[in-house]
């Protein structure tokens, strides 16, 4: 009798089977179908960028004025632009520009911003005051305006666009990192490091940094879409990727003049930007929910 009661009690309070952290992460991350769709879209875009030479039906840079402004047909699925270049091939190659600029600009911004935030939060005092006031001042300059001003001096081209955007996004990472460091710095294991005489550098890199990373990874993903949008914007204004380079933003601008006769020239690259940015935003949101529920709802 006693035994059976004990067994009943044990089964009553039986804990659910333990799941690993990674499985839990995957369950939350992939909970919504739209996230799976977003991931699918991103995989397709990445593959398209990698295999652009194999996928593009025509040379994206080959001009043929006798074929200019052709309507979509079986040979030119999305028609041709004013220089007779195949729009579909240019869009396929344009995915390379978008992904490279977005990814590298965000990584540069992440690296610089994390370093500034780490130093600011860890040392505090005048280091914190100076660095954070500079970040506050940078935030006062709208990102695209700052990138335009930097681009104006540095000039166009993919490297300069990456540098300009990378610098313009830095403050977001610096502020987030600083907040994280301030919170992690109070932890017992960091205090223990200080008390046992661990060097500042080791304490920062080994104890503080790894524990601040997850919200930064979320921000990196969420900013990818924003950086792609900004690159497209700069190229639309003529301040980004120089001709004859294929950028979705500059393609939208090139097609604007032929909007009435050939709307697909402007509309198709715009749809591509929308889809990629939307996919990054959806995946970024899901990553935020899965990695750091505390950040839920923050923009």
């Amino acid at each position, binding site marked *: 009798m006693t035994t059976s009661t004990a067994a009943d009690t044990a089964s009553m309070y039986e804990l659910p089977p333990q799941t690993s952290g990674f499985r839990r992460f995957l369950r939350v991350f992939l909970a919504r179908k739209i996230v799976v769709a977003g991931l699918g879209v991103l995989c397709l875009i990445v593959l398209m960028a990698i295999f652009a030479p194999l996928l593009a039906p025509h040379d994206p840079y080959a001009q043929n004025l006798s074929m200019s402004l052709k309507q979509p047909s079986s040979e030119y699925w999305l028609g041709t632009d004013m220089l007779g270049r195949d729009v579909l091939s240019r869009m396929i190659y344009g995915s390379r520009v978008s992904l490279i600029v977005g990814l590298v600009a965000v990584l540069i911004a992440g690296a610089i911003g994390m370093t500034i935030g780490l130093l600011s939060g860890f040392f505090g005092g005048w280091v914190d005051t100076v660095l954070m006031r500079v970040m*506050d001042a940078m935030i006062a300059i*709208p*990102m*695209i305006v700052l990138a335009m001003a930097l681009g104006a001096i540095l000039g166009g081209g993919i490297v300069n666009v990456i540098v300009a955007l990378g610098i313009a996004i830095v403050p977001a990472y610096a502020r987030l990192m600083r907040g994280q460091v301030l919170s992690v710095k109070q932890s017992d294991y960091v205090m223990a490091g200080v008390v046992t005489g661990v060097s500042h550098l080791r304490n920062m890199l080994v104890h503080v940094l790894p524990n601040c990373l997850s919200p930064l990874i979320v921000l990196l993903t969420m900013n990818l879409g924003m950086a792609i949008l900004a690159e497209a914007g700069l190229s639309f204004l003529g301040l980004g990727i120089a001709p004859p380079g294929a950028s979705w933003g500059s393609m939208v601008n090139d097609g604007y003049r032929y909007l009435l006769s050939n709307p697909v020239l*402007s509309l198709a690259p715009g749809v591509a930007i929308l889809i990629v940015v939307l996919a990054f935003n959806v995946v970024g949101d899901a990553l935020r929910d899965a990695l750091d529920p505390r950040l839920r*709802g923050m*923009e």
Partner: protein
Amino acid sequence: MLTFIVRRLIMTIAILFIVSLIVFTIMHLLPGDPVAIMLGDQASVEEIERLRTELGLDKPLPVQYANWLLDVLHGDLGRSISYNEDVGQLVRDRLPITFHIGLSAFLLAIVIGIPAGIIAAVKRGGWLDSLITVTANLGMAVPVFWLGILGVYLFSLKLGWLPVQGYTSPFEDLRQSLRQTVMPVVLLSLGSLATLARQTRSSMLEVIRQDYIRTARAKGVKENRVIMRHALRNALIPIITILGMGLASLVGGSVFIEQVFNIPGMGRLMVQSIFGKDYVVVQSVVLIVASVVALGNLAVDVAYGLIDPRIRLGK
């Protein structure tokens, strides 16, 4: 409250000082010689040197910065090379136009975005919530310049309802002004509206779960009152943060909208000055835009203090 405002004001002045340093640094320290760029490849060394002396660029950098800052503080932003006009006058002509479009878009974003977020939160899981959430996600991902082109194609070229481009002051011809600005304003507001709706939704959902909301409902307080009085007031802080950030993104977005709709505002002035290699104008536009955003953020900070006593009494 006054102490709080004065403290924030001092902070804003400090930030503006650093903004001026950043702008000056971008224009003077980065690789590339603005004078050589301004005059083009054909310019001789003498011409370059003459313009350098004229602009005071031959002096040591700290002296150049001090001179420029003193001039700016006296309202002298320099002279535009491409427009052959005082930069101050150029700005005075264009800033009200950007304000008109930007503030209208800002108000529209607030008037639609916050109620949309509240509705989505209250009707969580329903079709209205899904509609608002999906629209907000699209609004955040869509390139504003492309949307502008889409709008021109649909409402101007195909349907013929609205003019393709241009700007008329509302004081000159209100009807024409409304016809010309309705599309730029609506499109410019979309990004901020979407962000605001999302933030309001998540902020409201957070607050609606709190005990005091349950208590208010248990006491029989009407649902409208619970939402507007008890929930919204407490959900406002993150919403106001987004408003402050939205100001900067609106200014950024106006660059594209002014370009697509040929509106002679600050954004268009900046783009044209970059192409005209008129760095005196670029420098001034960046400084003024940043000052407007910083002052907007000051207003947001003051609003924080008014809404939440903990902030004005805190450190």
